[in-house]
């Protein structure tokens, strides 16, 4: 259980999910299961762009705290978390969580845990730009709170 078992980065640039997974797997020989989650800007009709605002003084520390929690829950599992900010176009990737473990169930669970908590505890806000000139802040979803809270009972 170390912070470094799950690395976290915050960046404006795009990422290469395959390269991140390869780098993760290169570190250990006992890994039989690798899971990746990629969150994407949906290519909804009329959506021009999605801008992610965040709270620079808090964001990375908050992601690292979530990562440390995952490391404590699944000590045999490693991972990388990359969250982008700034203006993204439809189809672009927003977030990557890639995990690897000797056990398939752990790799899946850690990835889901990280995503559920990133959705509810990482200080990002999405603003949509539409073709008609309007902008709209995306509403938080109750389903995300529920997804995160189910981990509290375990």
């Amino acid at each position, binding site marked *: 259980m170390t912070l470094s078992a799950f690395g976290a980065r915050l960046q404006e640039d795009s990422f290469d999910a395959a390269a991140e997974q390869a780098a993760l797997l290169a570190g250990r020989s006992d890994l039989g299961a690798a899971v990746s989650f990629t969150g994407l800007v949906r290519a909804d009709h009329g959506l021009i762009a999605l801008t992610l605002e965040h*709270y620079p003084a*808090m964001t990375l520390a908050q992601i690292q705290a979530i990562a440390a929690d995952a490391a404590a829950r699944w000590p045999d599992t490693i991972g990388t978390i990359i969250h982008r900010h700034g203006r993204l176009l439809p189809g672009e990737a*927003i977030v990557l969580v890639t995990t690897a473990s000797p056990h398939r169930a752990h790799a899946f669970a850690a990835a889901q845990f990280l995503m559920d908590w990133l959705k509810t505890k990482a200080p*990002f806000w*999405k603003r949509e730009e539409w073709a008609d000139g309007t902008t709209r802040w995306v509403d938080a979803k109750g389903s995300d709170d529920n997804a995160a809270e189910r981990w509290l009972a375990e």
Partner: protein
Amino acid sequence: MQLVYFAWVRTRIGKDAETLAVPAGMMTVSELLDWLAVRSPGHAAALEDRSAIKVAVDQQFAGPDTSIAGASEIAIFPPVTGG
């Protein structure tokens, strides 16, 4: 005390940060929000629906009863929508 605003809290208030001298004796997040809400129509609009407001005190998520005593930075924002 430094106040920082994000997302539609920021756009409604019309600024991303302000430094305010909060009255002595103001103890909690809830009291701070009540005091801020009457500063301007923008503050009022931003803080109107208190159930949609989240607060972090010195970069830690806080509740309405969290103490603000000695805090350097209070962030006020809507529920997060990253990921």
